[in-house]
């Protein structure tokens, strides 16, 4: 029989990693942040079991750790509203396709970026995204709609530029 941690927390590992990687754009840093988040989750113990939404807690914790990373390394002027991140060595090694995804996502405000990522990369339903981000389903839909509108314009601009 699986423990609570194995059943409810561990499955979020890769999802969280990809979300953190989206923010920090460095695999080693993302890995460190993920480790910290899981340690914090473990230390929470029974409190996490009593929460209605442990996924939301994990997300918040990961975001706070990423924010802390940016503050300590001073790579961003602002976060969460900032769009520009310093280029890391990881970005130079990314494929063209993933690079295009990141460059597009950098244009989006934080909430739209998160909703877009959770839908397009993680394949979550609106309800699951709402739980993760601790917002209403209607807000998820609005954010996703705006993100895809920006995507449409972005792709059209690229097409015209080619």
């Amino acid at each position, binding site marked *: 029989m699986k423990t609570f941690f194995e059943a409810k927390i561990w499955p979020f*590992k*890769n999802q969280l*990693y990809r979300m953190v990687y989206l923010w920090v754009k460095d695999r080693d840093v993302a890995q460190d942040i993920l*480790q910290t988040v899981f340690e914090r989750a473990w230390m929470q113990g029974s409190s996490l079991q009593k929460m209605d939404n442990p996924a939301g807690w994990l997300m918040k914790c990961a975001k706070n750790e990423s924010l802390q990373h940016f503050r300590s390394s001073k790579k961003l002027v602002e976060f969460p509203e900032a769009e520009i991140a310093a280029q890391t060595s990881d970005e130079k090694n990314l494929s063209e396709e*993933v690079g295009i995804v990141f460059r597009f996502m950098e244009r989006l405000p934080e909430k739209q970026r998160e909703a877009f990522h959770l839908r397009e990369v993680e394949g979550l339903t609106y309800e699951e995204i709402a739980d993760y981000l601790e917002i209403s389903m209607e807000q998820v*839909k609005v954010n996703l709609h705006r993100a895809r509108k920006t995507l449409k314009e972005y*792709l059209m601009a*690229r097409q015209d530029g080619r």
Partner: protein
Amino acid sequence: MEDRLNYLLERYWNAESSLEEEKELKELIRQSEDWTEQKILFEGLQELKQFEAGPIQEMPNVASKRISFLWLKIAALFLIFLVSISVSYRYFEKRAEEKAYEQVLAAFELIQENFQKAKENLEPFEDLRYLQSSFKLLDPTHTDD
């Protein structure tokens, strides 16, 4: 196929598509010879989905940190216990000394009291001094020089 693709794409831009429709849309775009930019972006998203975290340090190491912290708490409590025992012992020792001192004082008082009584009892015999002097007066051989 093109009609279906355009229909799904319109629903996609409006955030009205279901997950199944989006999956179908992406497959149709992948198979299409056009829609180059969309194709690149969806491929990028698919590639990003393959990113996985490295191994996470086993949680029992974190548990051992909790256990170490627990031992630290136990050690601190034990230290507090020892200090309080030591303080209590010194307090009681001091009290015992004070009590012994009081008892010695009480003993001296008793001695003094009894000495005073004895002195009072001997007062009548003080007059015997004078008795010896009277004998001297009556002694014909006694002279005061």
